[in-house]
């Protein structure tokens, strides 16, 4: 701002963070991202399995989706500062709040997933079951991707900076988890679509993550270092191994399919916990807040000068 000789300048207030990292527990919220994805994408695969006569897989996926959405709702409530006030989530319908939209989505999806699972297991009310299966399959993709907006709609550099890519990463990771669950619980004669979905998911996840890294520039380091780096590398290895195992051996051997499925599930969980950890790391280092903002200011000044 002032012309003159360059002086020694500090770029932060005693190295303290500029923004506040969320106080969320990783287990609850990253766990919620993973379980919500597993449930949502699982409902889509369940509907497909149902339509194509893969009834064992369909039933297993419906049950896993119900379990996952139940656990994810429990994680959300557990993470509240005032769990008894959970019903306040439904006081308003607020499109500017991803948490509000997610709460409404959960309250519509949850019963649908529950009805789909119960009718499938008991074999009663087949029409209700079909309707519930369809409803869960329609809402499932939204449940799997809205959590990316929940994370990105913050000032956290590693999340907001990747707000265009994060939904695709989450969709891919959710598909990987659901195909993993299908491989784990379904018989090999029914798992061709799951193997196919695993390949799509692995390719899409890798593409989305690379795009996010490019977009993030200097902030991308938060996905490579420390806990986040270890988790993201583990996720890549597990997803690749799971996909390769599923494609090569998934149709021949039940144990191989199950192992591949477990690897895919673990890979998806690592991705979500890795994204979460990268966000925390980026919030705690003032350089990741100040650096990109300085660059934006400099870019604007150059445009103004021209």
């Amino acid at each position, binding site marked *: *701002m002032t012309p003159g000789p360059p002086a020694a300048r500090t770029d932060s207030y005693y190295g303290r963070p500029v*923004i506040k990292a969320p106080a969320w527990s990783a287990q609850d919220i990253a766990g919620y991202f993973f379980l919500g994805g597993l449930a949502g994408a699982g409902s889509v695969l369940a509907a497909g399995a149902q339509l194509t006569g893969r009834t064992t897989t369909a039933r297993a996926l419906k049950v896993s989706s119900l379990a996952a959405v139940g656990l994810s709702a429990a994680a959300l409530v557990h993470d509240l500062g005032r769990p008894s006030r959970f019903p306040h989530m439904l006081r308003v319908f607020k499109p500017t*709040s991803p948490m509000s939209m997610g709460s409404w989505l959960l309250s519509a999806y949850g019963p649908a997933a529950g009805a789909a699972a119960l009718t499938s297991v008991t074999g009663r009310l087949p029409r209700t079951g079909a309707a519930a299966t369809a409803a869960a399959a329609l809402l499932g993709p939204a449940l799997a991707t809205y959590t990316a907006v929940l994370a990105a709609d913050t000032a956290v550099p590693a999340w907001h900076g990747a707000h265009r890519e994060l939904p695709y990463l989450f969709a891919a990771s959710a598909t990987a988890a659901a195909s993993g669950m299908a491989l784990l619980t379904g018989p090999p004669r029914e798992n061709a679509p799951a193997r196919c979905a695993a390949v799509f998911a692995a390719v899409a996840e890798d593409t989305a993550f690379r795009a996010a890294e490019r977009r993030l520039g200097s902030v991308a380091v938060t996905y490579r270092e420390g806990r986040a780096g270890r988790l993201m590398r583990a996720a890549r290895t597990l997803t690749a191994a799971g996909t390769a195992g599923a494609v090569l051996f998934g149709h021949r051997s039940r144990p191989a399919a199950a192992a591949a499925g477990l690897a895919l599930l673990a890979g998806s969980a690592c991705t979500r916990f890795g994204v979460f950890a990268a966000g925390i790391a980026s919030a705690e280092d003032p350089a990741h807040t100040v650096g990109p903002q300085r660059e934006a200011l400099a870019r604007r000044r150059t445009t103004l000068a021209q």
Partner: protein
Amino acid sequence: MRDNLLSGPEPDPARDAGHQDAPPRVGFFTDTSVCIGCKACEVACKEWNAVPEDGMALTGMSYDNTGGLGASTWRHVAFIEQPVPAGRTRLPLVEPDTRGGDGAAEDSGMRWLMSSDVCKHCTHAACLDVCPTGSLFRTEFGTVVVQEDICNGCGVCVPACPYGVIEQRPTDGRAFKCTLCYDRLGAGQEPACAKACPTESIQFGPLDELRERAALRVDQLHEAGVAEARLYGHEPDNGVGGDGAFFLLLDEPEVYGLPPDPVVTTRDLGTMWRHAGMAALSLAGGAALSFALPALTRPKGRR
């Protein structure tokens, strides 16, 4: 949902929030060039608002043992000790000691910067936008306040704030921040911190008036040779649509722990929902393809 309510200039946020006949928008102008770091604002804020203690630890970094804004710290006096930047004029606050002799203070080559930080009461407040319960709301004065009886401690406002102001109190679970003394405003009083400030570093009043006053003050300082004086957060077209609490600083914002170019995250909300929608469709499409491909290859033997 009109886009211009999520970012960009917005002259009357209170009216846009549904307050008919809203009084003029009020705020703070904190002139850090006259702050003496006495922390009377911190104390007055705590006393008036009955804010609990925020830790009795010594930071060991400076005379600032408060650290930063948080759930139990709604005013925070930053204290920076730094070498006087080369080529910069000293702030002529006090007449030089002309008595001569050994009594004249030696020039240490260091300077102290002090600044009382506070919630910015943004025109486009990310905390308010992302709050799922409606606990955070826009008052008739254009300020942003948390309703303690509504907040359920979801904590999403905490990372949403581009200034790191709002925080959950660990012992309580709910989120807290400066209310700009909503109760005092309602009774026609100025906020406790501004009332307590002995040097009028913290000035309270209608925002338009404060902006004029701040422009005059920064001109005055420039004329006095303090070229590094600059306003921070005053422009209605900045990333948060103008701050309800803005500052006169004597160094770059990040030196005071302030972000140099904060942007309300909800500016990109439309883009985010659009990509989430596309991603959801891609997920459904990918799944459909995963069932279609094996069906096409089925004649070779069902798998």
